[in-house]
């Protein structure tokens, strides 16, 4: 990413403060037949990237949706501390883009965030620059490649200057080059002060990007440790098995 873009985004979003932004207390999510999230408690502090890892069905995406209020817990509390609901943004595994141009997708997000009309053009250009989509500003968004669509979804999510960005396996179906560009973009966003929570199965990605890892197993948090510790000396048997690629039973 060009340095100038990083600087612009930092100026725009302001300096991050190190404090608690979201707390989950004994959160449970039940479906009709079974418990999907089983009493998790988690504190998210501002700044940096937290990786959320675990096998399929461990409850990672559900946890993300609970934090974003896209789901309501069956019991327990999801509490915003120093942020409001509007400060939380979400990027889905499969980006859903409007049937409009790239620039129009960004404009729509800025309107929803009530960004003043006179600031919109400048912000669209900034978002296009940091996502390297400037040349495609007038292309139909749904005609972009998978990586480009995901970059657009990501900058659209930060259009409103969120304090917490939740990312649900954004690089799951991307090639290494597209993944690398997206990781650069995540780093840029994190450097600007936005807290990122990233669901990933990629240990290498967690190592490259995150400061801490929340490891989930069967709806529970099995481990929450600094990334290097999690990857080098995992504490729980489930995490060891996961990292070694063994089947978890």
């Amino acid at each position, binding site marked *: 990413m060009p340095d100038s873009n990083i600087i612009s985004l930092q100026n725009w979003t302001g300096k991050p403060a190190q404090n608690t932004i979201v707390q989950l207390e004994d959160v449970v999510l039940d479906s009709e037949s079974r418990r999907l999230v089983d009493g998790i408690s988690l504190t998210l502090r501002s700044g940096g990237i937290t990786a959320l890892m675990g096998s399929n069905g461990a409850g990672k995406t559900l946890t993300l949706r609970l934090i974003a209020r*896209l789901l309501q817990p069956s019991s327990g509390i999801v509490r915003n501390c120093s942020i409001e609901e509007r400060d939380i943004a*979400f990027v889905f595994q499969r980006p*859903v883009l409007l049937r409009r141009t790239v620039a129009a997708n960004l404009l729509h997000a800025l309107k*929803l965030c009530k960004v003043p009309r006179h600031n919109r053009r400048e912000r669209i250009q900034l978002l296009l620059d940091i996502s390297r989509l400037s040349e495609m500003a007038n292309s139909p*968004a749904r005609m972009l490649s998978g990586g480009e669509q995901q970059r657009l979804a990501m900058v659209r999510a930060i259009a409103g200057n969120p304090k917490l960005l939740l990312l649900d396996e954004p690089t799951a179906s991307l090639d290494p080059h597209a993944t690398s560009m997206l990781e650069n973009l995540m780093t840029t966003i994190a450097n600007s002060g936005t807290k990122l929570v990233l669901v990933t199965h990629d240990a290498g990605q967690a190592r490259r990007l995150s400061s801490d890892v929340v490891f989930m197993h069967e709806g529970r948090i099995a481990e929450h440790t600094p990334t290097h510790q999690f990857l080098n000396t995992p504490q729980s048997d489930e995490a060891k098995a996961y990292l070694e690629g063994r089947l978890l039973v």
Partner: protein
Amino acid sequence: MEEIRTAFAAAFKLIVTLDHNLFEIVGLSLYVTLTAVLIACLIGLPLGALLAVGRFPGRHLVVVFINSLMGLPPVVVGLVVYLMLSSAGPFGVLQLLYTPTAMIIAQALLVTPIIAALSRQIIEALHGEYDEMLRSMHAGRMATLSTLIWDARYSLVTAALAGLGRAFAEVGAVMIVGGNINHVTRVMTTAIALETSKGELALALGLGIILVGLSIMINTALMSLRSEMERMAYA
């Protein structure tokens, strides 16, 4: 057979020579039909969107009711509008009976349920795709509705076309509330019915050819637009 051939020849002559009487009827038909469809779109699209997105008690019943109104018999609508606008009716004071405005009201009433029901289906499908994305962007109810209607605009052309087809072909309701008065409320369908009953096949055929031609032209133009937008991933 000779009679039909003569009638066709006379009909084409009327069209080619831009017969004043014929094109006066065509003009009024277009005015009444397009105005009615426009009004029906203004009411039907937001109503369809509201039914697609809204969750309220009795919603299912309203959906069933709107769907059943799609098959509303035109003569019944004509009769109801007649009763409302007749001098003894609640809106008699407006003196709208046997005017193009009465015909527009009757056609709008016929077309609105069609556009509302079809747009509900289209927008409901799109809402299924956009719902979480819009909620994650904290879009309010109005922003959600306007986003859905705008992004479904090319698909909603189909709903408008269905309404247009119904309005173009409609004869019963406009006959009752318009009265088929020459130079005032005579439109293509009522004129065709009248001229055929009089044995004046040339004018009836000329109008019929224009009616079918217009319908094909409008459908072709709008469907081409939709196909192009689909190709560009806008629809």
